[in-house]
């Protein structure tokens, strides 16, 4: 991360949207000095300021991603912190929470320190590493959560391994809450998903692929909600995919449980019907499910039952996915197309309005991590994104920054593009 840009910045005549304050002004100016958002610039600063014509653009807080992988440490051929954060910047993200299932994994302060060192040299955006919930994310013994919290960790998760044991999850929630850590859970009952390749439904039956039943997610989401109520602790459910899970979260929240949830842009945009040609790039966990699930996710996003859109960026080399379907790894490279995909799926479809979409990418994730970021309030770091909603573009293998060759939207015409990204007032994309 570089030092704040000393040149003042003046973004003029943009539509300014700041979900935290409810601000949505058709034509307004934003001012930045010494890396912070300010109410106004002095006449002298106005003269020296870099001026950006924001006409026709939307200016909003920089996006915050709660679910991404940046390759390092351990898998630099898939992604590095340098390429991954350049990709994040291109996608409008100014803060990213990285998943801890790196190699070595983040179950100790030493790995955390290593990631911090790489970031101080290579990162274009703010990187917040999540820690594992259990040692080696093996689901057996708790990771040293107190030490991780002391080292600056804000969130802990076993990510895709999930926690299969309710006793461990209960104690983890109680213990993590002591240190103000939020627990993130990938909801999957692994006993029901042996060999699963995609959503279990009519399409998986037709393709002859083993499926993840929706119930394998619903069951764990329900137990997580019950444990959140039992312990009074906070839990955040990662990348929901099923309509029943949405219903479970809605009910738990209405009872006052401290449960939040996220969804990925691909789950808002696509369904299992897209897998008919065995496209390995769309092999995801959780899997793309049915149209009724997609509609339920959109409705939950509108209501706020789902308060976060997270990219679920999981880069792989193109050759890793160039194989038989059941040999291919799960995951997609998405961080650069996340906004456009979500904009098309949620806003252009009429499901939600633009300020709500921006809230789900900014204030929603900020509140899960209890971060100060995600607003345009004066005095806060100038993390800003400029959006050109009229722009159409087509991602190609060449025009992306990520090393991930598994972006399933390559070749698709997308609507709405990130026109500029600023971290602490410095332009990074």
């Amino acid at each position, binding site marked *: 991360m570089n030092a704040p840009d000393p040149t003042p910045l003046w973004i003029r005549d943009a539509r300014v949207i700041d979900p935290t304050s409810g601000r949505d002004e058709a034509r307004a100016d934003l001012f930045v000095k010494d890396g912070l958002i300010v109410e106004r610039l002095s006449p002298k600063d106005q003269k020296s300021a870099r001026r950006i014509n924001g006409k026709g653009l939307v200016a909003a807080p920089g996006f915050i991603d709660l679910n991404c992988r940046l390759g390092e440490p351990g898998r630099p051929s898939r992604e590095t912190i340098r390429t991954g954060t350049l990709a994040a910047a291109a996608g409008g993200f100014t803060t990213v929470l990285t998943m801890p299932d790196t190699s070595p994994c983040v179950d100790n302060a030493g790995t955390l320190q290593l990631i911090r060192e790489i970031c101080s040299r290579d990162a274009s955006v703010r990187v917040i590493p999540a820690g594992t919930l259990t040692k080696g994310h093996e689901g057996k013994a708790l990771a040293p959560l107190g030490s991780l919290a002391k080292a600056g960790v804000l969130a802990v998760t076993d990510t895709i391994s999930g926690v299969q044991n309710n006793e461990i999850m209960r104690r983890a929630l109680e213990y993590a809450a002591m240190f103000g850590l939020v627990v993130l859970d990938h909801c999957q009952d692994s006993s029901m998903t042996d060999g699963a*390749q995609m959503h279990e439904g009519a399409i998986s*039956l*037709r393709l*002859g*692929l083993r499926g993840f039943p929706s119930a394998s997610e619903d069951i764990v989401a329900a137990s997580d909600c019950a444990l959140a109520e039992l312990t009074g602790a906070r839990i955040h459910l990662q990348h929901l995919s099923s309509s029943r899970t949405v219903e479970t979260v809605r009910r738990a929240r209405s009872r006052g449980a401290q449960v939040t949830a996220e969804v990925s842009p691909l789950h808002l945009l696509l369904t299992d019907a897209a897998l008919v040609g065995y496209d390995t790039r769309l092999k995801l966990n959780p899997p793309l499910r049915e149209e009724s699930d997609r509609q339920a996710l959109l409705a939950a996003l509108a209501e706020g039952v789902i308060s976060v859109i997270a990219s679920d960026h999981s880069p792989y080399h193109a050759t890793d996915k160039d194989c038989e379907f*059941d040999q291919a790894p799960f995951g997609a490279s998405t961080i650069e197309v996340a906004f456009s995909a979500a904009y098309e799926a949620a806003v252009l479809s009429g499901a939600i309005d633009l300020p709500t979409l921006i809230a789900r990418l900014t204030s929603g994730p900020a509140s899960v991590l209890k971060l100060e970021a995600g607003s345009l309030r004066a005095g806060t770091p100038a993390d800003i994104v400029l959006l050109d909603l009229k722009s159409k573009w087509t991602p190609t293998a060449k025009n992306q920054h990520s090393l991930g060759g598994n972006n399933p939207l390559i070749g698709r015409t997308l609507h709405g593009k990130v026109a500029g990204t600023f971290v602490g007032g410095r332009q990074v994309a």
Partner: protein
Amino acid sequence: MATRNTWKQKDLTGIETLSRAEIDQIFAQADRLLPTLDQEQSPPLLRGRTIVNLFLEPSTRTRTAFEISAKRLGAEVVSINTTGSSLVKGETLRDTALNIQALKADAIVLRHSSAGAAAYLGRALDISVINAGDGAHEHPTQALLDAYTLKRKFGKTDGLKVTILGDILFSRVARSDILCLAKLGVEVTLAGPATLVPARLAEAFPGVRIERNLRKALSSADAVMLLRIQHERQTTTHFPSLAEYTSQFGLNEARASWLKPKAIIMHPGPINRGVEVESALADGSRSVILSQVTHGVAIRMAVLHLCIGARAR
């Protein structure tokens, strides 16, 4: 052999991509080739061509049938199986296949444990790919020979009623049969344990009927197609034991008595005698199991000829 000029498909990766006209074309070609199986020689329609059997999953019957079919047509045949291939040395399927193509083979007959593998190779290669079974997805030549057997037995397929009994969930034969029979105007009923015949199959394959009452499923059928219980694919959760399967769903004399007088018994093999079918029934007058095998040679000759022979070298 006039029909070959109208054949457009490079590959046969599934029944899904075949039209009824194409299926009829395969049958017409099989009709011409079937009588030649009893002669010393069949027409050498594939002389000078090389076919590679790439079998990455155990198979005796299908591999042998393809080998005999290709040799009958005068082609050279090379067989590669899992243990002899470089896939165990870490080479990818794509690279193995590209090498076979570079060796100037004309076609690959692929048996693979991954659903979608044949279509994947078909897209990657310029030479023909014939699917000899891809995971639990499709086994098109088996379905074609099954439908061909029905057609020869009953003189037509439209309006026939066929019940497929057993493990549908893990069966590529069942999937191809359902698609093929539906295209040929056959009414398909599925029966077997609910764990292996999930209700949503009716949604996956519009038009098929699921019948939980075995007597009803058998009494209306012109043919019953028995599927092998695939111990190697099932986890123990799908049914209690083979003995329980036999007691609940095995075809025995008592259950066979529910069949129409002229109904036939079919099986894609290999048979587990005493499990899904009583030995006497497999060998009895209703059984067409060995005719299926012979028809399989004619069908595979027809498919190989149409896909490979129709293309210029």
